[in-house]
């Protein structure tokens, strides 16, 4: 393996690692449940993409074979991440988990919980 390829793999792994770290960091730092939902769906998708691309290049170069598991992982991640985020948001909404005080549009909560259209003044 040439140093250039090693460097490329390192760059991808590092980028992925940084984004996964940022995702966990956001989970720790953001103020309420709803805002915390945003980091695992997003920061981790790019983080994992970086790690997976790095892994693909490594196996392609080191073992001379095309490993497609990574593509499948990406596909499954893209399908499941929004669904789980949606279910978590929905569960929080129906369990009346309180949002941060300065959250705008809190008057929509009751309508959303009853699955009704928003109140007319909106």
């Amino acid at each position, binding site marked *: 393996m040439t140093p250039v390829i090693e460097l490329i793999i390192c760059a991808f792994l590092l980028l992925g690692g940084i984004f996964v770290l940022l995702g966990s960091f956001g989970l720790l730092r953001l103020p309420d449940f709803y*805002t915390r939902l*945003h980091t695992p769906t997003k920061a981790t*998708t790019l983080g994992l993409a970086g790690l997976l691309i790095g892994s693909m290049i490594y196996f392609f170069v080191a073992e001379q074979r095309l490993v497609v598991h990574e593509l499948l992982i990406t596909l499954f991640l893209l399908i499941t991440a929004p669904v789980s985020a*949606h279910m978590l948001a929905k569960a929080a909404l129906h369990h009346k988990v309180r949002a*941060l005080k300065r959250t705008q549009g809190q008057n929509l909560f009751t309508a959303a919980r009853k699955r009704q259209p*928003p109140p007319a003044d909106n």
Partner: protein
Amino acid sequence: MIRSWTRRWIPMPAQSLILFATWLLLNNTLAPGHILLGAFLALAIPLLVVPMQAPQPRVRSHLRAVRYTLMVLYDILVANFEVAMRVIGPMSKLQPAFVAVPLDIEGTLPITILASTISLTPGTVSAEVSEDRQWLYIHVLHLTDEAQLIAQIKSRYEAPLKEIFGC
């Protein structure tokens, strides 16, 4: 005659193909045993699930669907950087909000795809759909202009989906 026979025993040809390919990719092999087993699963699973299927609008334009996928992937990339910046930045400046987005598209599949796209892209997560499927409730990490956000969702994601499904 032949057509009705195929429809009876291979009700979802596209899904069968995807299942077959996924099975071989997961096992990372082309061994005859796995090809046989994969083919069996690809034929048997659709037969089991076909009664559960709800009628869905067909994809009208495959080219547009591919273009939409690429655009969403690009937006996910941008979304990641945006959310990363917000996570590092000061928490007191965050302006989270709940927003109701009016829906023009119909059908469970297009609405599901739109909701998933919203969850994957810039600082928004879909939370609930109204019973009449006219409104989508979303949570926004940092809201600057509600009308602009709604207009952007409608023009960037909803309009192409409408063209793809022709509804």
